[in-house]
């Protein structure tokens, strides 16, 4: 186990800057998620860490050791891929033993270490099977066991859950998370799925066009996005264009006046998360950010209801509200019915 210090790492393909001078420090035992849309450079970054792509410049320091130009087979980094990438011709046991044998681990030690690794992922009973005889979820757990059996300094996960169906994805995700905490292994996971990122990561690194847009905790990125891209990428959001007037309030183009907890100078947009929207059937007597509108329509999201509300100025705000709250507020889901909404100033983020 070790920390990773990445500095000035960059890679260009022709005129395309795949990774544009990124700096990132990952602490020992930390679970860091690199996420972003496809083509943002996250996979290129991961492959440079693993040693499959040679960077044009920059440095990767792993536990004090400069591995920037080390071949992959000398890095001691465990890898898990989206498509499992198990060795199809080897049994589960031999798959997990592969890295140990390459390291010249003592013969008598191999069996217990393979068994240990497989029991961590609850698969000790399947040692004699071939990969194709296992389900996708089992194969991915074997891949995880194979990667941790070598006691790597770092675990790199490349979209490890994307090939699994929705239910299995949650299960393997939670297993992965608890295993990572139990072993205290420094882990970097690449994903395009923000829900996955929010639920397992200690810290998130959001990338776009080869650059890092924001590094922070899931809470930071969700509630204190650095810019519109981050706000838009993480979760669903209402954006209102406008500007801060002399009264220190934000005036949207449609004439909505919002007070916010912070007023960054030059802000041109207000961001409000759908779940920050409160609804009433009668106008609120006092309090900031009380706005009236009309119901445009609604969508059931299982336990919650997504409500689209038309503002007088032509803007539309989406709220996500529980049916119970709607009932208590006495709001009827009738198109064009008047509705009154309010937002706490701390939930209005100006960008």
């Amino acid at each position, binding site marked *: 186990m070790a920390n990773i210090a990445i500095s000035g790492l960059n890679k260009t393909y022709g005129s395309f800057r795949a990774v544009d001078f990124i700096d990132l420090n990952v602490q020992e035992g930390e679970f860091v998620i690199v996420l972003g849309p496809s083509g943002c450079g996250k996979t290129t970054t991961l492959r440079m860490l*693993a*040693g499959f792509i040679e960077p044009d410049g920059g440095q990767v320091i792993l536990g004090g050791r400069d591995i920037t130009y080390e*071949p992959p087979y000398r890095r001691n980094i465990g*890898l898990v*891929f989206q498509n499992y*990438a*198990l060795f*199809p011709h080897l049994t589960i046991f031999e798959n997990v033993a592969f890295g140990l044998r*390459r390291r010249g681990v003592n013969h008598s030690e191999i069996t217990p270490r393979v068994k240990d690794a497989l029991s961590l992922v609850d698969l000790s009973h399947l040692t004699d099977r071939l990969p194709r005889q296992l389900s996708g979820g089992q194969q991915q757990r074997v891949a995880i066991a194979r990667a941790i059996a070598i006691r790597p300094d770092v675990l790199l996960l490349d979209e490890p859950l994307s090939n699994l169906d929705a239910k299995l994805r949650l299960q393997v995700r939670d297993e992965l998370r608890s295993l990572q905490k139990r072993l205290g292994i420094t882990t970097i996971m690449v994903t395009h799925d923000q829900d996955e990122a929010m639920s397992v990561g200690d810290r998130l690194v959001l990338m776009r066009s080869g650059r890092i847009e924001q590094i922070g905790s899931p809470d930071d990125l969700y509630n204190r996005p650095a810019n519109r891209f981050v706000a838009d990428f993480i979760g669903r959001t209402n954006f209102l264009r406008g500007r801060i007037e002399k009264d220190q309030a934000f005036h949207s183009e449609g004439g909505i006046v919002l007070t916010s907890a912070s007023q960054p100078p030059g802000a041109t947009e207000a961001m409000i998360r759908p779940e920050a929207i409160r609804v009433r059937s009668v106008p609120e007597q006092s309090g900031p950010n009380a706005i009236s509108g009309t119901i445009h329509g609604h969508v059931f999201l299982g336990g919650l209801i997504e409500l689209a509300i038309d503002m007088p100025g032509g803007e539309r705000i989406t709220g996500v509200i529980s049916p119970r709250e709607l009932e208590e507020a006495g709001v009827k889901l009738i198109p064009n019915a008047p509705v009154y909404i309010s937002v706490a100033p701390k939930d209005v983020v100006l960008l």
Partner: protein
Amino acid sequence: MQTKPIGAAALLIPATGLVLVFMGLPLIYLFRYSLNQYVPGEFIVDGFTLENYRIFFSEAYYLTGMWTTLLMAGAVTILCITLGLPIANWIARQSGTLKTILLMAVILPLFISNAVRAAGWMVAFGQAGVLNYVLLQLGLISEPLQIMQTPIAVFIGMTAVNLPYVVLTLQSIFEGLDENIDFAAASLGAQPLQSFFLVRLPQVVPGILAASMLSFILAMNAYATPVLLGGPSFRMMAPMVVVEIMNKANWPLGAALAFILLATTVAISILAALFIRRRY
């Protein structure tokens, strides 16, 4: 509404008909000939005898020919696979223009007929040929090597004929391998050579067997190369069939030889196919 699958099967009728008329019938005819009696000076004498097959199995001339054919086909196949594996693996890992050039270099020889290529080898291997000239000039040999009209010349010539087929077959299989599996092997500590032997090679075993069968069948039935490079005293089955039919006008024995060659090739192919299916 879904139409019955008979519609698709019906589309195969013309092709099946062609195969039956132009391949099945001649084969049946040939088999019938192989049971005829041979009377020198007379073309067709209807009969019903296994005499021609008995001749094959009792005369060293024919058995040696079959043995030579099997040995040559086996040796050529082994060399083709040995050379083809690293070449195919290497081509599969290239990209862009280089890959196109390499693939063209493999495919282009197939545009030239076997006989013409054999003529090329004759120029290269002859007493005053290119190879002997170079070796003499370099002082590596003091007198020209006798390569033409030897099994070695046939061996080299046939390997050159079969190698493109083997490389193309293997290359397409290497191409289909998952790159992430190589990455996984490397991350687990496998150096490139270990990775090739422990991870890539085992994955392409079915492909190796398929390419071997292809090369073996081609070599078993080779005609132009053994005739042109092997000389009159070197005998393989396909040229022997031609000698019986064209030179000796012994159609019954020629037909019997052709059938024995066909049966041996098919039998070995089926055994190999069974082996592939059982193992993979």
